[in-house]
């Protein structure tokens, strides 16, 4: 996991480098501009990651293509047979305040609520959180646990894939430079509970040292299905499959959840950085895995 560290040489600028600015009115138009400009162009949504990286000259795009005039990307809706749809330009606070999410997947709204601080949540977007592919991002674990799909639109058309297959490394995804992530779909499902537990080093404005999401289907105290997703302990969010396998088909017990925690801890690949050591992260995975499972089992989608 490569952490983005804003180390500056002494005296280096903290000033936005020059760039051209575009604000198209449709996704098609945006893709066409991106295709035209090539790899030097970047998509701008909330800008809470991109503009800071630009100020520190970690990225120096020749052009920014803003999505702010593409209103259709900012909706949250439900389509029968498809599922719950989160537009990529929805802000984190749109998720926090969404009645639809409160009714169906409060866990997603709660995960969004744990992110950053209110100012960032007011402007940072769902799509940005995914496309930036920061290993400690808070939305991917819960969305992957709920089996979310993402839609990518490019000049040649659109494609849909599981979010789980979207990330390839820190800051790396399968998205092409002329593609735009337009929506996230949480499909209808039989899960009985889901949750995300973030461990940060203060209550607000802290990145996840470890984030664990769990989604479970429990019938008469027996776990029929389980998905556990770990954040900030590998180059991408990862499934803890050994832990999931241990759970399926078994009755809920303290020992079972502890065992799942140990398996998840064994499977993760944390690094040491300025926030935490690898061994601390690994033990937190154990603890948070059993706690998130317990909560998803006992309390539903919270």
């Amino acid at each position, binding site marked *: 996991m490569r952490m983005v560290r804003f180390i500056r040489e002494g005296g280096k600028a903290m000033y936005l480098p020059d760039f051209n600015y575009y604000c198209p009115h449709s996704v098609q138009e945006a893709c066409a501009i991106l295709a035209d400009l090539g790899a030097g162009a970047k998509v701008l949504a909330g800008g809470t990651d991109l503009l800071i990286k630009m100020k520190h000259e970690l990225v120096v795009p020749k052009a920014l293509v803003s999505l702010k005039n593409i209103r259709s990307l900012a909706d949250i809706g439900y389509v029968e047979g498809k599922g719950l749809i989160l537009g990529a330009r929805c802000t984190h606070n749109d998720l926090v305040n969404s009645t639809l999410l409160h009714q169906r997947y409060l866990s997603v709204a709660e995960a969004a609520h744990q992110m950053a601080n209110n100012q960032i949540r007011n402007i940072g977007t769902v799509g940005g959180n995914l496309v930036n592919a920061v290993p400690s991002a808070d939305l991917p674990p819960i969305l992957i646990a709920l089996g979310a799909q993402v839609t990518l639109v490019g000049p040649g058309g659109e494609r849909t894939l599981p979010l789980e297959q979207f990330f390839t490394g820190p800051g790396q995804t399968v998205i092409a430079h002329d593609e735009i992530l337009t929506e996230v779909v949480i499909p209808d499902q039989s899960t009985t509970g889901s949750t995300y537990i973030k461990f940060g080093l203060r209550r607000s404005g802290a990145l996840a040292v470890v984030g664990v999401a769990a989604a479970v289907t429990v019938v008469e105290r027996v776990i029929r299905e389980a998905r556990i997703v770990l954040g900030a302990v590998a180059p991408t969010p990862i499934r803890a499959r050994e832990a999931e396998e241990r759970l399926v088909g078994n009755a809920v017990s303290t020992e079972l959840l502890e065992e799942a925690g140990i398996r998840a801890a064994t499977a993760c690949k944390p690094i040491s950085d300025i926030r935490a050591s690898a061994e*601390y992260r690994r033990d937190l995975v154990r603890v948070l895995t059993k706690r998130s499972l317990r909560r998803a089992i006992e309390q539903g989608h919270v």
Partner: protein
Amino acid sequence: MRDNYAVIGKSVPKIDGRVKVTGQAKYTGDLKFPNMLVGKILTSPHPHARILHIDTTEAERLPGVKAVITHKDVPPLKYGISPARWDENIFCIDKVRFVGDKVAAVAAVDDETVYKALKLIKVDYEVLPAVFDPIEAMAEGAPQIHDEYPRNINTEIHQHFGDVEKAFAQAYHVRTDRFVGQRTYQSPIEPHSAISMWEGGKLTVYTSTQSPHYFQYYIARQFGLPMGDVRVVKTFVGGGFGGKLEPTGLEFAGAVLSRLTGRPVKMFYDRHEMFAHNRGRHRQIMEITSGVDRDGKILGVHANFIMDGGAYTSLGIATAYYAGAMLTLTYDFANYKFDMIRVYTNLPACGAQRGHGAPQPRYAFECHLDMVAQDLGIDPLEMRLRNARKPNTITPNQFKINSCELEECIQQARRLSGWDAKKGKLPRGRGIGIAVGSFVSGAGYPIYRTNLPHAAAIIKVHEDGSAATLYTGATDIGQGSDTVLCQMAAEAMGFVYERMKIVAADTETTPHDFGAYASRQTLMSGAAVKQAGEEVKKQLLAMAGEMMQVAPEELDCREGVIFVKGRPEVNITFGEAAREFFVRKGPLIGRGAYTPPTLGGTFRGAAVGTSPAYSFAAQISEVEVDEETGEIQVKEVWDVHDCGTVINPALLHGQVHGALYMGMGESVWEEVLFDASGRILNPNLAEYRLPTALDMPKITSALVDSFEPAGPWGVKEVGEGATIPTMGCYANAIYDAMGIRVYSLPLTYEKVWRALREKRNADFSQNRQMAEAVPATPDEAARGDGR
């Protein structure tokens, strides 16, 4: 002793509250002047390097650039804030000593051009070996940071009062513990900024400062100007906490850029540059030994400290002395030894941060005292009561304590927190801890040697009697001194707060005052204001006497009404008398000045820590520790303060909350981190974790009855005192909750987790050897733990 006051003692609204909440208040960064340029400083990318060559030609050629300056364009005179160690230059001449050291500066028409120009300055460096740890820096063969200081020793202190060795020999129990503090940064929300205008032989600087006077003194000295030709004006300030007490490159470079261009120049630090400029808390390595008798009475203490000073002295000499000097305030013991070495390293310079040198040693001592109490089987609160300082005593390092209600602070904190019902009785994972603290109410001596009074004030009553303006050099940096001093002025004159105006902290229009540091203004500036107000009142009563045909001594004035004592129905208004005074005699002015009495002993360093008065505080906190993750939740804190008479209770409790907030941050979250090349890893508010509102516990701030004879109306300090006990208090509460001791700050979740794991492992192996276990005596148990 207490009077029935009309204006002081009341939570009047802050005098600048409305302009601040409506955004009308202008900070230096908000100000614009015609033709103003923007300036910025180029700093070093290396922690230690020789400057071979600086080429500014390309930067100078950039359109919009008006001036580029290096060491060749500025006075070569070394400066600093501690006269004993002036070791900084406006720009580095031969070499740079930390990442962020100042090399050159640019003035241009706008921000964008300035940033572009900085990149065009070419500096050739020969990179030198660097050292980042004070112990390594003292070793033979370590890189030499300043030629004048062998082994990089910046300051060395050896003080001995009484006979510590003898006290230890006579003690029932002697224990040594070792602790490590961390580097923290004040992190004021408002960045440093300055606008300099050098016009017609006079230099005017608008700046975000804690002390216009020291800025004026050092700027004048640097440029060889009479102080009268330098005007320093404080604007609204968004926090200082010790970091804005000394002039920065912004004032010096800005002045030169303004002189060269003939235009006003605005300079500022961004957040990263603030961290690099630093002047925050030193990292200290602290070894404490104490000897106690069978009942826990402290007989002697030896404090043996080393501190990482960073690349320059800043206020660090005072910090080094304070670290040891203030350990003697809270507990009564006769024998004390203090050894300290402050060491240069290739890191940003450290200085004074809220509580100055005191909070980390206090953390160490309060933890140590808890362990001594544990060795002896004494309740930690009882241990503190047995040793608590009494009023009208003298410390071994010769500080005279007048008022001191520490015992009552401890007792009240005990009652408020429910200590007796909680200590040792809380459920697993919950704990309660206590620590105490004390702080000066202003330093007994100024930073440089001078016989100027410490504070002065003028009150001018408006010609029509409708208002009065207080002119004071005292410096409001958000703490509310403007408000408190106006309350004091109104009280002394017999006037009303609502009709008070204030002009403050402008070296040309207001009389001299040393500014906001060492928690001095309520007592010292307040004393000058009281005198000025009383002088107005005296003149006014004389005038009213003439007008009313009554002897002035028969009259009194209160809340804007002058009346015959015992016959309040016979009265005229303050305004009527004031107007008449102006008609008959000219301006109605009152003047005041304050100089503290001669304080302290005659030994080397005796001045540091002297003060006319000392505040005292006891803090108890209750924490919850997550046994599996090490996460610490502070549930509740009780702070009981002895700060003398209270002028404005709301502001006072605000200071306690703010000081506690900073203490909390340093206890658990804050630490400036560096990579192996001396670059700051977390120079931003995302990774330098100040606590947020969500992290704050429930706070009870309470006061004990107290009156300080050395202060006007009996006042003492409050601004820094509440920062001091917090770190030790939390550490002790964590110990009570989980039986683990973290020997370094901050007490991070991971350190707690690690200590818990070590304890579990130790308990496990101990359980296996239970059968052979033999109980140790307290002495043996203690000496075995020689951390």
